[in-house]
């Protein structure tokens, strides 16, 4: 049976959403938007960017999941489509983690990638 192909988007896991809501509450930023994006730099060429902002950018793509509003600028979206934003906690945790299927290589410390 043929299945409908889901359009590529950016997803946030429940764990990551929980941490986002917690940080927003602690900082008094309930209702804010999590703006994710890509920046040039890092050993491999591109790094991830995550900020909690009052409003999304004018032409941002908006995604809502698990009670969190994510926004991404259009150019970054090209490199992030299909990404799942997760949270890695504990002593060895990395904090917010971008599981990006577009990333072909990553640098030694894992904070930058290339496509």
């Amino acid at each position: 049976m043929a299945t409908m192909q889901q359009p590529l988007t950016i997803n946030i896991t429940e764990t990551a959403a929980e941490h986002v809501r917690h940080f927003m509450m602690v900082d008094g930023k309930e209702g804010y938007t999590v703006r994710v994006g890509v920046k040039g730099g890092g050993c491999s060429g591109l790094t991830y960017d995550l900020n909690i902002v009052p409003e999304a950018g004018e032409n941002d793509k908006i995604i809502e999941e698990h009670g969190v509003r994510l926004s991404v600028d259009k150019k970054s979206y090209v490199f992030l489509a299909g990404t799942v934003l997760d949270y890695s906690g504990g002593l060895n945790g990395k904090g917010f983690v971008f599981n990006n299927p577009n990333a072909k290589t990553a640098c030694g410390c894992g904070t930058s990638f290339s496509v």
Partner: protein
Amino acid sequence: MPDGALTQVNAGAAHYGDPAVEFAALESGVGVTDRSHVGRLRLRGADVLDLLDRLTTNKLETLEPGEGMPSVLTTSKGRVVDLLTLTAADDYLLCLTSPGRQEAVVEWIDFYTFAEDVTVEDASADTAQLSLAGPGAATLLEGLGVDVSGLPTFHSRAYALSNADVLVWHTLSVGTPTYEIIVPVAAATGVWEALTQAGAVPTGYQAREAYRVQHGMPVHAAEFGDDTNPLESRLKGAISFNKGCYIGQEVVARLNTYQKVQRRLMAVTFSGNAQIGDALKSTDGVAAGVVTSVAQVPGGGTLIGLALVRQEHAAPDATLLVADRDTTATLSEPAFALATEPVEA
């Protein structure tokens, strides 16, 4: 002409009558060369230094107005896109690229610009670049009301010269002091005349190329490019090893830390003919490197060059053979590298 093409496409004339006189002016007087073929970009916006700090090898983040420095645009594999020379002018960052590389540099910066406040404008066509070099350069400028005393290397300052607003930029001086004068194109002829009437010898690219090769200054497509890393091209002086991440940093840092650089740019003096692209071999026939630049010192002087030489053969005073020619190549350290490479602790 040497038995080998010049490595650079140049603006201005090949010479203005006597390349030997022009070469002598660069070495012991003052020469002025039209170097308008060099790429000039104006970068504006609040995030310019932050972005270029992430894309290039040197520590640009703290650059103050008037200051400048060289920095290498590298790929994630640590290969060279271009060597940039940068200075913070009044409300923009002026960036010199290699001749003909401005478009590639603009595309590279544009690819890595996401949400940053950065605009790049190609100023190559609306400005000219007159390069004043020689031991008497500062004195000549002072005679024209341009006091460059106290202008450190890589620093720039705005001046009025021959009724034109110009930027005078003390760029790297290997051998003799060099000042790049960036001038609106409409005023270039007036500034050129003011400089030559004050005693600067019009100098064509033949003499300038010989001067470059003699002092071991690497250029794009000859000594560096997408098949070299900045360390083998002796661009260490344009690299910060403690600034943190930039594109290609991991590769460049590893090459440096573990001394994995395979080749080394060396200056060469030839005993006979040689051409760019000639292979070098050791006296017992082992492949040792490749000739990247060749120039004849004007006035029937020595044939000199630059070469990328395998580390095990790259010793000063070593003698190599030019493959398929009856020519020996004697190596020495390039003056440029000696002047710019940081002294190891």
